[in-house]
């Protein structure tokens, strides 16, 4: 169980990256969803012991992560948003190095673990290859492999699928789903809503350094039951509809506009038909509500 209480971080005296954030995260994949600049990476860096918060506490299984960084690192697996690897080493040398740094001293155990990790991330064929020749997807898979070394209790994965092609993204989702079944807290930070909807059992939306909501994807979608509508309307009516309703998406199709709107409790007009809500609807609804409130 990960407990975050009143976590605050300010950069340079005036940029408040985190505003008294509190979260409870139980084992499984937890999605932290937010736009760029929301404070996700700051939170991830604090949890990875790389950044000192101004105030607040973080506990993992009752253990204080802020004041005992050296011990907290034994429980951590971290895949940063932007990371590199020593280009002149092979994948096997790299993983072997991380395993040793994580305290896997027994040679036989280390070899078995590395074999299994390569198998799991589907890089067995590339284990002897130098890292300079790795593609973005291969690097991400090696990144998650190093994060999994040593049965970590908290796995932090920061924007792992940004920049990956659909094929690699799918493969990476599979890897995270497998990890979710191993009693660890997997904290997935992303700005891609579909990553959360397809992977996470719990989620929170962060924006401007504050948590806007903490829920499960199912509950989030349930909140919009009977509130999402779709219709194809003439292009000239779009502006008027946008003024009256919250338009989630609009697509142009042969001179007409295909609109998806949120209207809670009433049908916008005759041509609108009910649509099945998805997590994107919830996310945009939440963010728009906050913008209107501001």
């Amino acid at each position: 169980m990960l407990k975050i209480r009143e976590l605050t971080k300010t950069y340079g005296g005036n940029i408040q990256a985190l505003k008294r954030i509190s979260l409870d995260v139980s084992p499984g994949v937890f999605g932290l969803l937010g736009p760029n600049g929301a404070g996700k990476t700051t939170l991830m860096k604090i949890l990875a012991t790389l950044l000192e918060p101004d105030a607040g506490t973080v506990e993992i299984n009752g253990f204080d992560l802020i004041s005992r960084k050296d011990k907290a690192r034994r429980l951590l697996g971290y895949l940063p948003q932007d990371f590199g690897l020593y280009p002149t080493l092979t994948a096997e040398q790299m993983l072997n190095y991380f395993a040793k740094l994580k305290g896997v001293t027994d040679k036989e155990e280390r070899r078995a673990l590395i074999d299994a990790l390569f198998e799991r991330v589907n890089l067995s064929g590339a284990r002897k290859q130098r890292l300079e020749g790795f593609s973005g997807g291969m690097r991400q898979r090696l990144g998650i492999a190093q994060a999994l070394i040593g049965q970590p209790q908290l796995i932090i994965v920061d924007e792992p699928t940004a920049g990956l092609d659909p094929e690699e993204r799918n493969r990476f989702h599979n890897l995270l789903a497998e990890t979710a079944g191993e009693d660890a807290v997997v904290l997935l930070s992303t700005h891609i809503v579909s990553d959360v909807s397809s992977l996470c059992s719990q989620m929170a939306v962060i924006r401007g350094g504050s948590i806007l909501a903490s829920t499960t994807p199912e509950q989030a979608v349930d909140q919009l039951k009977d509130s999402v509508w779709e219709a194809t309307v003439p292009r000239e009516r779009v502006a008027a509809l946008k003024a009256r309703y919250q338009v989630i998406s609009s697509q142009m199709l042969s001179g007409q506009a295909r609109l998806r709107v949120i209207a809670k409790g009433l049908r916008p007009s005759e041509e609108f038909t009910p649509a099945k809500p998805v997590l994107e609807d919830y996310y945009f609804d939440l963010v728009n509500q906050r913008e209107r409130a501001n």
Partner: protein
Amino acid sequence: MRNPLQTPFAAIFQNEVRLNSRRVAPYFMALLCAGNALLWWGWGPAVGRGLAINSDFVIAGVLPIYSFLTLPLFTAVFMADPVSRDFRDGIDPLIFSKPISRGEYLLGKFFGNFFVLACCQSAFVLMWFALQAVHKQGVTTQQFKVIPYIKHFLVLVVISHFLLAAFYFAVGALTRNAKIVYGLGVAFYPIYITYQVALLSSLPRYWKLALDPGVMNRGNVHDRERTIEWMNQVVVVYEPDLIINRVVVILLAAIFLTIVYLRFRITERPVKVEAFSVLNLTEGAGGFYYDPPSTEPSLVERFEHHSHEKVLLPGVTRATAGIRAHLHQLFAALTVEFRLLRAERSFVAVMPLAIFLSIFEVAFYNIPPDVSYSAAYATNTAKLMLLFLLGIAVFYTGEAIHRDREVRMEPVLWATPAANNVLLLSKFLATLVLTCALIFVVGIVAVAIQVLRHHTPIDLHAYFRVYGLILLPSTIFVTAVVVLANIVLRNKHVAYVFSIGTAVGLFYLYSTGYNHWLYNPLLYQLWNYLDLTGAGSNHSIILIHRIYCLAASVACLALAHILFQRKSTRRVMMDGHLTDRGWSILLAVVSITTVVGTGWIISSMHAVALP
């Protein structure tokens, strides 16, 4: 009219200069060239003979030798991979998708790198030029001169290396394999010397001059047939043979560049394609297309689907606390750091060069044996090696300390349960192992030369004594100081400037007579072999000085650990035990106390010795 500074050629040229400004090799080379100039100026063949150091004859006589001695290897390092680097880093599609011609690309690459190379080479003449203002006993200086430096440097150094650079560039661009070029760089000496001995030595002088691309067969400063007055007054005029030689050299370089232009292809080499096709990494993803989120399988579906093929990770025992686990981590980090150091491109040039120049005098000159041949060999090689040990400590430690940040490994490494001292000490020890390896190899080569020249018997104790008492503690000290400087300054270029500036300032002080033991950690000019055996007058002070030096090294490392950017805890004690930070503070206090104590003893002994 198109602005020449806005052309693709100019863009590539500028980019190459910018890229080189962020590499270690140019700074190392410039430093080496400047150091070389200092040695030729203060301790070269013109000194003590009344031969003016800035006379036309000396400048024109020394530059070809300077050009021959160290520069071909650096030319190979600079010109080996400007093109292959783009392919290696995957930037080639970005460049070749722009409206840029093959000629602009290749010429921009070539001249950008050659410009940096020539700038580094010019450190020699710039140093000589500046030294005209410095007075030293035995060094004769005529009135201030400018033109001979520029003229002879361009004609005798730059043009020679223009040919070499074009050749190396052509090989590097066409093979896209830097190692072949490095091999050719190392092979330069045997090939060139064989060419001189087997072909040119039997030819008349004008043919020797015309056919020698390195212009080594001109008059030299050891010429005993000429009077000193004549040499000081003569104005060197280039003979037609030399002019023809230079024109031919430029034409040959142009031919190499034309060959590259004609043969260069922007497509990937077939062998690369094969290498990548071996990896079948698309397994399990065939036919997958991105679907909207609503149709993607849920977590449960995904997990159930994959559970039958999921690879279970075996349980492992982990040890991250205790000395044994600590040493295990340190050894792992040291192995990787050393492997990364060995992969540095400049390593290929620097190490052979350091070995060659360190044994240069014992191999080619007669070293008078004061005590024994072994003592003379060990002393001579130790003195010549010192500059390289300093350079290696400064540059490679800087590289090691900042490498993790530069390759963006820092967040991953810093999140592991490795202690700060593991991360720091591994970098310190890797450089130290490297310098020890250099000392060891030079020692072996020196012993081999002793045997070959029949300067026996071999006394290994002499080598252990000199290298162990003088070189090793000095290297430990310099490396520790550089670690601290890099941690405090947090920028390797600033740390380079600080280190080099301090070293130059100290050597200047030593050469002008301000050579006190307390600020001479390398014992430069303060020891001779007899002192180390106990027969000399400075035996005790040297031993205490070594403790002083090592204690200062420990203090630097402890301070570096305390100031290291990665924080684990601010506390000194935790759970009734000292934390890593607590140990560092304790170690810093003890070592600084030792430095103060031994420093005081050295001062007292020095004061007693002075009258």
